[in-house]
């Protein structure tokens, strides 16, 4: 029988399904490669732009042979712009991966660090520091706000985890809990702003707009370290996470333990999101838009979807950073405003033009 010959000789000519699968894999590898190239290009443009303009050639020269460019160019490109530009990549990737996995494990296209209240929690922590100088853990002044933000983001995440462990709490309820968190923290923020000085209110508002300009090398290394730790841990569960999209019953039948996987992944991606938000403030919608674009381009097989989400998120934020510098020359508009203003219409365009129902 033909089935036997296929089974016993793996090198037999490809069946129709296998040929299609192979072409699909190849196409996805090409898309990932294209994303990497686009990312590199966007990074160079991002570095070139600013009060002192450089040509792309100068930027690439400074990247490849830092010793051959002028002292001034080296300081501006490597010390001032590079941490900011790289921070955009890492934060974009972190938020997007966090959103991708929240959507996967909660089977909800609206799940993201933003809608689960993690960003709102971070804002509240930051506001405590900015308005009243409250340091949840006393540290160097530069790190008070990020640490406050990080801790409140993690508190929010653990609150959601704790509630989700209660009997009878379903995946839908978890998303509702997140939205409740958003409202609670927004009220608390309003309360802080009511009592704080004018100056402090301005600082809080600026922080919640999200800005990359405070990025430094140490902050970048911390964010990168967390991303580089979490990604392999997620990849290890690649097949199981893909199976989660078939529903709990189906995933269970394949040997996945949905509850424990959900918990582990929620902890990991909360960490990812909390770090990102803590350093740069609320940058909305990357965690929502990044994964959706990756899903349209690459499907939901995590071997491609996970790196794809990271690359899409990084690219969006990097392009956002470029746009924030060129809209009004000489002024850097807070990146959070750009990602919302440009990202949302683009997102709507994609969603409305993509007919497949996948939720």
């Amino acid at each position, binding site marked *: 029988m*033909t*089935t036997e010959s*296929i*089974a016993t*000789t*793996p*090198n*037999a000519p490809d*069946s*129709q*399904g*296998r040929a*299609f*699968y192979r072409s*699909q894999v190849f196409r996805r590898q090409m898309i990932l490669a294209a994303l990497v190239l686009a990312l590199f290009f966007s990074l160079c443009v991002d570095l070139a732009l600013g009060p002192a303009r450089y040509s792309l050639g100068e930027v690439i020269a400074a990247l490849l042979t830092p010793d051959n460019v002028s002292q001034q160019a080296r300081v501006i490109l490597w010390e001032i712009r590079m941490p900011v530009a790289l921070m955009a990549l890492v934060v974009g990737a972190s938020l997007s991966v966090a959103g991708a996995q929240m959507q996967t494990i909660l089977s909800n296209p609206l799940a993201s660090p933003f809608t689960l209240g993690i960003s709102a929690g971070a804002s509240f922590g930051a506001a405590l520091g900015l308005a009243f100088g409250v340091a949840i853990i006393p540290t160097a002044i530069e790190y008070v706000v990020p640490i406050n933000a990080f801790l409140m983001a993690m508190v929010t995440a653990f609150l959601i985890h704790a509630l989700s462990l209660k009997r009878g709490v379903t995946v839908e309820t978890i998303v509702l809990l997140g939205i409740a968190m958003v409202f609670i923290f927004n009220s608390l923020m309003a309360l802080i702003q009511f009592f704080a000085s004018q100056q402090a209110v301005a600082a809080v508002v600026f922080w919640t707009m999200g800005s990359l300009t405070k990025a430094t090398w140490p902050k970048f290394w911390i964010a990168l370290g967390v991303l580089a730790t979490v990604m392999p841990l997620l*990849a290890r569960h*690649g*097949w*199981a996470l*893909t*199976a989660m*999209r*078939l*529903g709990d*019953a*189906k995933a*269970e*039948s*394949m*040997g*996945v333990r949905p509850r424990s996987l959900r918990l582990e992944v929620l902890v990991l991606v909360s960490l990812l999101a909390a770090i990102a938000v803590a350093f740069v403030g609320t940058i909305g919608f990357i965690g929502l838009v990044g994964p959706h674009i990756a*899903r*349209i381009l690459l*499907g*939901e*097989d995590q*071997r491609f979807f996970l790196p794809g989400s990271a690359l899409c998120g990084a690219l969006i934020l990097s392009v956002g950073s470029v746009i924030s510098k060129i809209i009004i020359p000489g002024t850097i508009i807070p990146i959070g405003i750009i990602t919302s203003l440009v990202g949302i219409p683009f997102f709507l365009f994609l969603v409305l033009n993509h007919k*497949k*129902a*996948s*939720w």
Partner: protein
Amino acid sequence: MVTLQLNHVSARYGRHPIVQDITTPCFQGGQVVALLGPNAAGKSTLFRRILGLLKGEGEVAISGTNAERPVAYMPQETGAKAVLTVYESVLLARMQGRSLKVQAADLAQVDRALSELNISALGERDIGDLSGGQRQLVSAAQALVQEPDILMLDEPTSALDLNRQINLLGVLRRLADERNMLIMVALHDLGHALRFADAAMMLENGRLIACGPTADVITPTLLRQVYRVEARIEPCSKGRLQLIVEEAV
């Protein structure tokens, strides 16, 4: 050879006992066992208990296998929406617990499972766009592709046309005969059970009320008691036992 035996097995949802005190003889690889019983008798619950997805007293003894996951399971509900093709979704079932790197042998298994169920042509389709019967066949392929020692299927033919019902059950029969798998399959069609199964278990209200060779379990007396129908079981001109239902009582 793989064996499966249940000793005083119970299962509950929360505090409600659903399946109670089920003890079976030792089933062996090469056997097809039909799990029978009216709606809500506890068939799906027993499957989930055997798989360890539900807690309860008693012991599920599986031996004669060194596979890490000897049991594959096809659940009753099969719908899912995700951006995955049929081919990907079957590969996914194959790859659980394995490395991220897909080997040629894995792809060969996917091809084999799809062609055994005559759904190779569906490989490129998105799983969200399938008909009910197609979804059920894909779900069966996801179980087959795991190459288990024990294969459990919860009403695998409920959405299939006549040809595909017979084909699927024929595939199961062959898997038992040729690859020595132990197949346990929940069925509502007792005619299919008579034709394809070696043994049958009859559940009613969570209790095992009959268990043994299929023809000894499916009897007019038991059908009247459990399904409340008047029925005869007679050999056809080729000598195969046929179920003839007269009326519901």
